[in-house]
């Protein structure tokens, strides 16, 4: 029964990992740019949730959409203001561009909020319930289920709608997309907006049960990179499977070996998978 509890907790956190990693994989798939600031986007969203709750007294039903919208805007602004320009430069300029942005976001937050650990009240969504022997923390359950639904929603948006078809067309062949009348620029900006909105929702959800600090983005970024590599670059279903897997493995590691080792074990498994399947778990060879 304890094992089921551990797996359940891992699954719920893993769904949130899957959501923000989907954003990273979308941005990568669209223009082969790695967003090194992705973890810091999640961090910003956590602060948005914290401020909205403490200063504006908004509940999750408001601060989650608010964080989504604000991060969407941030993504679009970052695309037009930064990415679009560094993309024309050498690869090192692209790396430094988003890496520099990560530092700016991190240290600006540190400067404004200091390095204190903040958190939202534990019982924001109600008390812990016990169902069939499982401890259900409402904040984790809501975060996990919402993240799962949104990740699947993103996949459906990309594969089942005209807008998604256009986004994927630009991702697949920019010139061919122009040939059918698509302006690539707004589509790429939209990909950044959507990718960042994923971090917005994920950050606001994870803030429900996670500590909030300016450097939290570092470990989240590592998770996102591992998830994207495992899931296959550009694949949202891959990110979903890999995110859930990482969440569960982390949870089991914490339980069996100890919380301090979870990052190490995730990383070792990551290397092991890449050894046998360099294209990732679901990626095409």
């Amino acid at each position, binding site marked *: 029964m304890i094992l089921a509890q551990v797996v359940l907790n891992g699954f719920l956190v893993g769904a949130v990992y899957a959501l923000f990693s989907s954003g990273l994989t979308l941005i990568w798939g669209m223009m082969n740019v790695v967003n090194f600031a992705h973890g810091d986007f999640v961090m910003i969203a956590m602060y948005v949730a914290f401020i909205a709750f403490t200063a504006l007294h908004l509940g999750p039903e408001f601060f989650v959409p608010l964080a989504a919208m604000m991060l969407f805007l941030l993504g679009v602004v970052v695309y037009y203001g930064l990415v679009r320009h560094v993309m024309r430069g050498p690869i090192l300029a692209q790396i430094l561009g988003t890496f520099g942005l990560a530092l700016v976001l991190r240290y600006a937050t540190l400067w404004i909020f200091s390095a204190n650990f903040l958190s939202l009240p534990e019982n924001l969504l109600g008390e812990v319930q016990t169902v069939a022997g499982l401890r259900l923390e409402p904040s984790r359950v809501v975060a996990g289920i919402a993240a799962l639904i949104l990740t699947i929603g993103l996949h459906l948006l990309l594969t089942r709608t*005209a807008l998604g*078809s*256009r986004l*994927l*067309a630009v991702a*697949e*062949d920019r*010139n*061919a*997309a*122009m*040939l*059918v*009348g*698509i*302006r*690539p620029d707004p589509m790429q900006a939209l990909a950044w907006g959507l990718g960042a909105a994923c971090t917005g929702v994920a950050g606001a959800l994870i803030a429900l049960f996670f500590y909030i600090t300016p450097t939290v983005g570092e470990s989240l970024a590592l998770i996102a990179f591992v998830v994207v590599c495992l899931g296959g670059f550009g694949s949202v279903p891959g990110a979903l499977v890999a995110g859930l897997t990482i969440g569960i493995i982390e949870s089991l590691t914490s339980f069996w070996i100890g919380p301090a080792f979870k990052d190490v074990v995730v990383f070792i498994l990551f290397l092991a998978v890449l050894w046998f399947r360099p294209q990732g778990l679901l990626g095409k060879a």
Partner: protein
Amino acid sequence: MTDALLSVRNLEVRYGDLVGVSDVSLEVRKGEVVALLGSNGAGKTTVLNAIIGLVRPTAGQVLWEGASIAGQPAFAVVGRGLALAPEGWRLFVNQTVEQNLRLGATPLGNRKREAELLEKVFAFLPKLKERRRQAAGTLSGGERQMLAVGRALMSAPRLLLLDEPSLGLAPAIVEMMYEKLQVLRDEGLTLLIAEQSVELALDIADRGYVIQTGRSVLEGPADELARSPEVQRAYLGIGGDEAPA
């Protein structure tokens, strides 16, 4: 001269230090089928790509209904009523046949027109209807060429540019492809077809242009060109002037 739908004058395209074409002129009038002939590397693709806006001309003019479109990006040019079935097809291989076709209707920005055109294209190319839910990447070469043409038709173009519609296809498929083009011609669609296969292209065309190492060298009615010894030479890619770099 003035009733030309498309007119290309002294087109030059450079790829950095390399010359794609150095001096090409041609004209397409409404309702005409025009062949653009030349051997391997003569510059046919470069001319079509410069017209549609995938590459920028470095000199010369591209006029569409008298207005300059030279240097405009492809997404703007296709909105004006031109479409290209490109070399190598350039399909969205991870998307379905139907999605590829629907993407072709993007310049119209009209879902109702899109649905009508989709039915029309399916009636014209029934094979695509059978395959509508399949990923474009699973199609055979002939079907891919059909899809490239179908996708171009989805924007209801007034001028359809075709880049070597026979390339890499089995003879029977090529024949079917050209029968389809004949139908489009009979419906009054204006076509500009780049080809290495001279007989095929001149059979369907009203007029033709021959380019050699990036220059226009010959033009005339299709039947005259078909008889010209120069055409055979250009077609075989031997003899003729070397273009100065």
